[in-house]
């Protein structure tokens, strides 16, 4: 089985670009990835592309071939939809295909256009990641679902809005030097606690913003990298995916995310590492409480112990294991279908040393955690710098 190298990566600026189409965003991200990789487009054998709400936001389905065209490819292209984990799944399928010998060169990525829908339209569009009959028709929104999980967590394990605010402050700080981030602006715990409530106990600063953007990465086999003398020091050494019941009400736990626990275990086993080997992580903090659930699912902390990690300085940039050095979804932004691949992009740059926060990376092993809906689907990837 061949190894999988990250040959090149690219992002657009994440933020408000309501006047730019998804195809334009993806064209830009993929162009950066090809320039970074030094791989000719003609060598690409397939595009794995993630997108969630294209039908609602752009009246555009069948985005695989459209985005291949935008990226300048004639290769077959498939869209993966798994809510907010769409392009995490796209990465996983690319890794599997390269390992299986089905392809030597794959373009993976994703894009989402959201701001043109406005806040109400986006709230409605995101809600379709929940169970329509039993959740959406009861008035549940995406922030409400995470608020239900936050309340359940506080009730079972303890924790406070201040603990969550520390996570927001940390992730905003990390985004200050990230030119691709939506918010390059520091906030304080007081700012977060004083912000308007969206769905209590979550306020405006507990939530990721509405974001437009795209991400792309060129993945290649070890053999291809060697033959073409590519400078590609980072490999994807582990991949895992987990699933759970669609509706929160049908889950065994309201304050844990077993889908992510299973994905992490699979990815760790695949890479031959354990949670204590991980130096740095990019996790799916669509809401501050989601970062806590991710830290526990990745087994960095036992259930109930991840809540104070940011406040204790363990996950901050000078901590033992920095989390979301990119700014996370919270400050970098969350263009839904682009997010999973964007985490791989940020992690690659962090590990190979050309990210503005690379100096905070304490070791050669990184993990990315990408969750769909209320974590009914999750992918986890392990990335390592090859010696």
């Amino acid at each position, binding site marked *: 089985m061949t190894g999988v190298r990250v040959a090149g990566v690219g992002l657009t600026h994440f933020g408000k670009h309501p006047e730019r189409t998804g195809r334009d965003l993806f064209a830009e991200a993929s162009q950066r990835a090809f320039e970074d990789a030094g791989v000719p487009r003609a060598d690409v054998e397939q595009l794995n592309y993630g997108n969630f709400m294209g039908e609602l936001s752009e009246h555009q389905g069948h985005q695989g071939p459209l985005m291949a065209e935008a990226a300048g490819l004639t290769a077959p292209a498939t869209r993966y939809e798994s809510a907010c984990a769409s392009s995490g799944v796209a990465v996983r399928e690319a890794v599997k295909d390269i390992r299986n010998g089905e392809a030597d060169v794959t373009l993976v990525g994703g894009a989402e256009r959201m701001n043109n829908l406005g*806040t*109400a*339209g986006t*709230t*409605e569009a995101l*809600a379709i990641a929940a169970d329509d*009959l*039993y*959740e*959406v*028709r*009861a*008035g*549940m*929104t995406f*922030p*409400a679902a995470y*608020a*239900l*999980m936050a*309340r*359940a967590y506080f*009730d079972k394990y303890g924790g406070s809005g201040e603990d969550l605010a520390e996570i927001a402050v940390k992730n905003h700080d990390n985004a200050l030097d990230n030119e691709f981030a939506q918010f390059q602006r520091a906030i304080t715990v007081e700012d977060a606690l004083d912000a*308007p*409530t*969206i*769905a*209590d*106990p*979550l306020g405006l600063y507990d939530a990721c913003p509405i974001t437009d953007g795209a991400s792309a990465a060129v993945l290649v086999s070890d053999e291809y990298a060697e033959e073409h003398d590519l400078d590609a020091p980072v490999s994807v050494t582990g991949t895992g995916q987990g699933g759970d*019941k669609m*509706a*929160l*009400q*049908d889950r065994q736990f*309201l304050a844990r995310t077993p889908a992510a626990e299973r994905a992490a275990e699979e990815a760790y086993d695949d890479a031959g590492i354990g949670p204590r080997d991980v130096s740095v992580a990019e996790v799916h903090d669509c809401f501050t409480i989601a970062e806590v659930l991710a830290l526990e699912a990745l087994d960095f902390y036992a259930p109930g112990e991840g809540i104070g990690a940011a406040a204790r300085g363990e996950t901050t940039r000078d901590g033992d294991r920095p989390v979301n050095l990119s700014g996370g979804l919270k400050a970098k932004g969350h263009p839904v279908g682009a997010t999973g691949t964007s985490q791989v992009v940020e992690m690659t740059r962090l590990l190979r040393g050309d990210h503005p926060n690379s100096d905070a990376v304490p070791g050669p092993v990184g993990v990315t955690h990408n969750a769909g809906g209320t974590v009914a689907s999750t992918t986890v990837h392990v990335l390592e710098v090859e010696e």
Partner: protein
Amino acid sequence: MSDESGEADRVRDEGFDDFLDAIESGEGFYLECPEGHGSLPPRRVCPHCGATDLEHVALPETGEIETYTTVHVAAPEFADDAPYVTAVADFGAVRLTGQLRELDAGELDVGTEVTVGIGESETADERVLAFRPR
């Protein structure tokens, strides 16, 4: 719901609407497999074990609030309802997600006992599962 924009009436969702009808007439039920796993309709297979012989079992009279939130930013179909309280309540073999009626979030706690019935959304005049204090 029918409006001037020509939006069609919502098609009846057999199974789900049967369930709402049953709740409305005070005969709420859930589905139970031979292993005792509970689930909600529409369902042909137990989501926990795959058993296909599912029976209707009466829903307990009361459930306990397990978690809740006040929604301030709603989707368009609930725009005029906001703020409103959405909660998950434990009815033993199944949990239900519904909106709270006749109680404010301030009077509510994890563990509060509720009954379930049908309420209406203000914005769209649609039926919603509604929890009321016991």
